């Protein structure tokens, strides 16, 4: 037996999954993208350049200032300056990028104080104007109608939207595994009731029902309460597919010899499920739930865009895209659509990682 074959035959299941996953270049790249996005989720204050709520009407609709890493051949990041002039007839500020004047920008600059992860006091930001007095003049992704910094708002929106996708799917997985498990392992009346419930939920027109449910949320709820409620609403339908799958697996596994052996050895029912049955399809569940996250993200974004999901002052990708609702405004400030590009990027990344995981989790794939 060659050394590689030996390595494969003694490797644990998870190691095999990892080796197969590593072969999908796009999936690995997407996993990196997701890692960066979730890093931003963890420390949004570090990644942002401004206070996402700070408004300044004089700075409305400032354009994108492209970040240049090199000044000539020297590594010295800068952004072009922007000069504004008020149009005497429309009274609107008209901004012009002034490529000739450079505003120096530095990584890891000191700025507004904040608490890292909510605990450690810190002042360091990922990026910012080198001189403190230039700070108001650097807006990497432009500003919106109220002069709020789009980059910083996007960072905070990423936190909400990526977390909602993850929590809603976690909740669906818990519901799906528990109810699907009961349905498949215990069977009988419980099985019939749960299967009919799944039938009913799957026959519902999802988007209208979601809208009706979110519209029913009291107006005076805090952003945290609304966040939780939306998560619950999204997973209400989301668990059914997984529930069906888990039930099928349990039905098949119930007849397996190793389950019978465990039963004869007097292992408790709970231990059989948790230690013997679930691990055999855990990798499959992880792959399926990764593929379910993008649907959750798209749903949240759509609901918030219609004004019935996450509500301002809370920030999510959908809330940011609400600013782009008016086509005249978009024509004036196309950078308001940037959050949309981030939505597509993250959904794409989740889909690719999910596909890679699904192939890797299948022990018979080549």
């Amino acid at each position, binding site marked *: 037996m060659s050394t590689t074959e030996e390595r494969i035959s003694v490797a644990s299941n998870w190691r095999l999954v990892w080796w197969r996953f590593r072969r999908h270049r796009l999936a690995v790249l997407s996993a990196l993208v997701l890692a960066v996005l979730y890093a931003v989720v963890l420390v949004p204050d570090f990644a942002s350049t401004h206070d996402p709520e700070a408004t300044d009407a004089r700075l409305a609709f400032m354009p994108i200032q492209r970040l240049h890493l090199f000044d000539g051949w020297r590594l010295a990041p800068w952004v072009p300056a922007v000069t504004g002039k008020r149009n005497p007839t429309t009274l609107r500020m008209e901004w012009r990028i002034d490529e000739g004047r450079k505003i120096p920008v530095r990584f890891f600059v000191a700025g507004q104080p904040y608490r890292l992860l909510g605990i450690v006091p810190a002042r360091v930001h990922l990026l910012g104007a080198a001189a403190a007095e230039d700070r108001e003049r650097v807006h990497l992704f432009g500003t919106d109608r109220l002069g709020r910094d789009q980059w910083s708002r996007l960072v905070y929106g990423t936190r909400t939207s990526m977390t909602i996708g993850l929590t809603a799917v976690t909740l669906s997985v818990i519901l799906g595994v528990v109810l699907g498990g009961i349905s498949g392992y215990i069977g009988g009346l419980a099985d019939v009731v749960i299967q009919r419930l799944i039938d009913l939920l799957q*026959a519902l027109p999802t988007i209208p029902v979601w*809208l*009706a449910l979110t519209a029913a949320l009291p107006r005076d709820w805090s952003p945290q309460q609304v966040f939780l409620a939306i998560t619950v609403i999204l997973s209400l339908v989301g668990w059914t597919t997984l529930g069906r799958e888990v039930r099928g697996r349990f039905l098949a596994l119930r007849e397996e010899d190793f389950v019978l052996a465990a039963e004869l050895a007097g292992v408790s029912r709970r231990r059989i499920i948790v230690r013997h049955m679930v691990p055999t399809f855990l990798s499959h569940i992880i792959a399926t739930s990764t593929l379910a996250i993008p649907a959750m993200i798209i749903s949240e974004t*759509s609901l918030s*865009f*219609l004004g019935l999901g996450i509500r301002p002052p809370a920030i999510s990708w959908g809330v940011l895209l609400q600013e782009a609702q008016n086509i005249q405004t978009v024509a004036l400030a196309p950078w308001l659509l940037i959050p949309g590009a981030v*939505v597509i990027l993250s959904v794409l990344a989740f889909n690719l990682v999910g596909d890679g995981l699904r192939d890797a989790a299948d022990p018979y794939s080549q």
Partner: protein
Amino acid sequence: MTRFVLKRLLLLPVLLFVFSVAVFAIVQAPPGDFLTTYVATLASSGSSISAEQIAALRQEFGLDQPVWIQYLKWMQNLLSGNLGLSLEYQRPNAELIGERLVLTVVLALFAFAITWIVAIPAGIYSAMHPRSVFDYVLTLLNYVGVATPNFLLALVLMWVAFAYFGLSATGLFSPDLVDAPWSAARVVDLLKHVWLPAVVLGVAGTARLTRVMRANLLDELNKPYVTTARAKGLSEWRLVLRYPARLALNPLVSTIGWYLPLLFSGSLIVATVMNLPNIGPLLLRALINQDMYLAGSILLIYCFLTIVGTLISDILLAWLDPRIRIEEG
């Protein structure tokens, strides 16, 4: 076959009953009722209404009665074909919904047709030329198509149309025909406008169906009968279209069951963004203003459309595949 269809049809009222209870519970759920919202709107516009008038209105609409009586009254009206009165518009709901419902179905069916017309040839070509440039481009488009939310695509298209071509891509009719009665000119006008929202609505589904078609056909093309046919000298196109393509289509029929309902409810978001005279924006407004009978009726119509969509696919599938008929009949 008849028994199978009958069984499914008998289940329809049961499902609708369960849904009607759920729907009523949801539209009833928000604190306050239509009148509290109405009074708040009046107050914000500076006018007011006396307490007696509110009480009188509340009695007139039956909002002062217990919830279950309100439900029974609503049901009674529904069963006699009366969708009730919109509290906000003070017009019969049936009148408000009528034409909009037709347009909802027309839009969904157009999106459906576009999906199949594009997805099947694209899937077949992709499967016949795997790993070709076209196949890779199509795969890329598919991934992006699935990843783009409907409303975002609508926004981008409207922005491009407005900023670069000076066109407005909203609505389903030209301005002069919006309120006109139905005529040949109006139908032609509708056909001119409906395809853009239909494309927006169908993109994600097209991407998904192309993948399914490609995978199904690739599985078929590896089977021995295809090799035999090729060995006999059949031309490549005839060979593929004759049997493998037909077999690969079968599993696609089962996707109608979730795809049609998805189009019905997905049209809600597209309609809101593109300002289409659909039942979607009407529902949104009714929900926000707590116009509960209107919202309830529209939600129930969505439920009905969803069930019918699933039913159509079940019947088609049973008609195509005898195994399902025998198993469930």
